[in-house]
């Protein structure tokens, strides 16, 4: 064990945890004022529920055992894991670090169905989705016995497991829950959006630079390329916004930063700084376009989960196959001549899309049919706002008018 690696990985775990409240603010600022508490709670409750599921069975299902498709029951309740087990870092630290990824992934999905999804059903969904969608995909990609891992798919920090997965699940959810009755034209609180994006950016350093599980050169490279891609994508998006509307939307720049962070995620362990510039530029331009296209469809993926996390994740996974540098991550990409890597990346992408969409769709469909659950709040509750109807609280209460 190495105290330096442990030091960094504890800090990295804390940073990734903070991403979920960051997301809560980011999403919370984008909705109407009557749904802020609800939107924030979708994320915050994931910290509570997924943490418990993870130590009870989530970790064991996701990252233990020798199966190709799913873990096993050997570490249920983290049984038999001693604080001194592990090399480099304690195994329990790996459990915690991975937990933070499992927390934020379903929180990302909620952007698709904010302002109308039933909170109690969502809590049940969290438990089931982590078990049947997140755990298997994490096993495929990150467990050394997982079939995508063995195939050689590169996904340093979760482009497929986290982002494509959440982005595609978001489509399934948006389809099933239906459109908002009366969506707001503007974000209700732009400072929350920008502050949330900043916390995401900050936490993402833990996400990506922690995914090597060590404080070493690869972590530093991940730090550098993460920042570079975020910055490039934010700038690209901002400039496109300026060109098209004559104004530089703050929400746009913040969204660009997130898109860049998404796209660099799978590549953070293998792309260099030039690759990061390219990936960031691509993420800014492609996801910007994806948002505009989404607006032309009838799909009310309210906070653009697919356009940013889905599309950004796909672009990132493919780009990893293009820009991977053997000197950094030991595997070359297409530019260095290993064109075959592109095919492997494509397989990982397609399989993740298919599995995530189908499994999420089925889960939600069943939840919709169970009496007492159901996906959508009543029309009156939606009109009144979910803050009052689901949580009994208004976000903002003034003096005098109390």
């Amino acid at each position, binding site marked *: 064990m190495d105290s330096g690696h442990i030091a960094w990985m504890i800090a990295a775990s804390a940073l990734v945890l903070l991403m979920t409240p960051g997301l809560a603010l980011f999403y919370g600022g984008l909705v109407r004022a009557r749904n802020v508490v609800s939107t924030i709670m979708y994320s915050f409750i994931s910290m509570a529920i997924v943490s418990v599921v993870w130590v009870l069975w989530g970790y064991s299902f996701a990252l233990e055992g020798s199966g190709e498709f799913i873990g096993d029951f050997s570490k249920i309740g983290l049984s038999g894991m001693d604080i001194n087990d592990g090399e480099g870092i304690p195994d329990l630290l790996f459990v915690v670090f991975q937990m933070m990824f499992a927390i934020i992934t379903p929180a990302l999905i909620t952007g698709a169905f904010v302002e109308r999804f039933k909170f109690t059903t969502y809590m049940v969904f969290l438990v089931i989705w982590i078990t049947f969608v997140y755990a298997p995909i994490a096993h495929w990609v990150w467990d050394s016995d997982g079939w995508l891992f063995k195939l050689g798919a590169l996904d340093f920090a979760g482009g497929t497991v986290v982002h494509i997965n959440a982005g595609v699940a978001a489509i399934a959810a948006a389809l099933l829950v239906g459109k908002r009755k009366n969506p707001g*034209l*503007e974000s209700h609180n732009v400072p929350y959006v920008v502050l949330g994006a900043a916390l995401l950016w900050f936490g993402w350093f833990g996400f990506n630079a922690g995914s090597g599980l060590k404080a070493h050169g690869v972590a530093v490279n991940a730090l550098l390329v993460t920042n570079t891609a975020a910055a490039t994508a934010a700038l690209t*998006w*901002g400039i*496109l*916004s300026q060109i*098209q*509307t*004559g*104004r*530089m*939307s703050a*929400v*746009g*720049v913040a*969204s660009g930063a997130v898109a860049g962070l998404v796209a660099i995620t799978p590549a953070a362990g293998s792309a260099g700084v030039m690759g990061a510039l390219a990936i960031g530029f691509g993420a800014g331009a492609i996801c*910007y376009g994806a*948002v*505009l296209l989404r*607006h032309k469809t009838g799909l009310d993926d309210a906070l*653009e989960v697919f356009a940013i996390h889905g599309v950004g994740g796909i672009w990132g996974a493919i780009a990893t196959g293009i820009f991977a540098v053997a000197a950094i991550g030991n595997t070359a990409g297409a530019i260095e001549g290993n064109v075959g890597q592109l095919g492997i990346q494509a397989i990982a992408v397609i399989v993740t899309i298919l599995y995530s969409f189908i499994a999420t769709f089925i889960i939600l469909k069943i939840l919709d049919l169970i009496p007492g659950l159901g996906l959508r709040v009543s029309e009156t509750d939606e009109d009144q706002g979910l803050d009052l109807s689901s949580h009994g609280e208004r976000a903002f209460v003034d003096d005098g008018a109390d």
Partner: protein
Amino acid sequence: MLKIEAIIRPERVGEVTEALLDAGCSGFHYHNVTGQGQQQGVKVVTGRGGQIANRSAVPKTVLTTVISDEMQEKITKAIVDAARTPDSGDIGDGKIFISSVVDAVRVRTGESGEGAI
């Protein structure tokens, strides 16, 4: 007694309240509203920065003051002069509505009528 309600641009509140004080009006109150009229509205960016929309409703401030009948002209003139965009005025500079007030009561003293305003 008359009630003057002036819908003005938020950025002109300072000028208008100064003008009111100068004109001898010692009491008023104001609050922000969302207004819609001939003004084109404001351009707001939507779609994560990729689209531009026209929100017809624009932020305005409503200033209310109750005055005695004979001050009507002086006060409306003061408001109009201070609220109008310099030079020739712009669409959206606002409107003034005048209505009559039956009585006024000062809470502190309980006195009513003209003396209370």
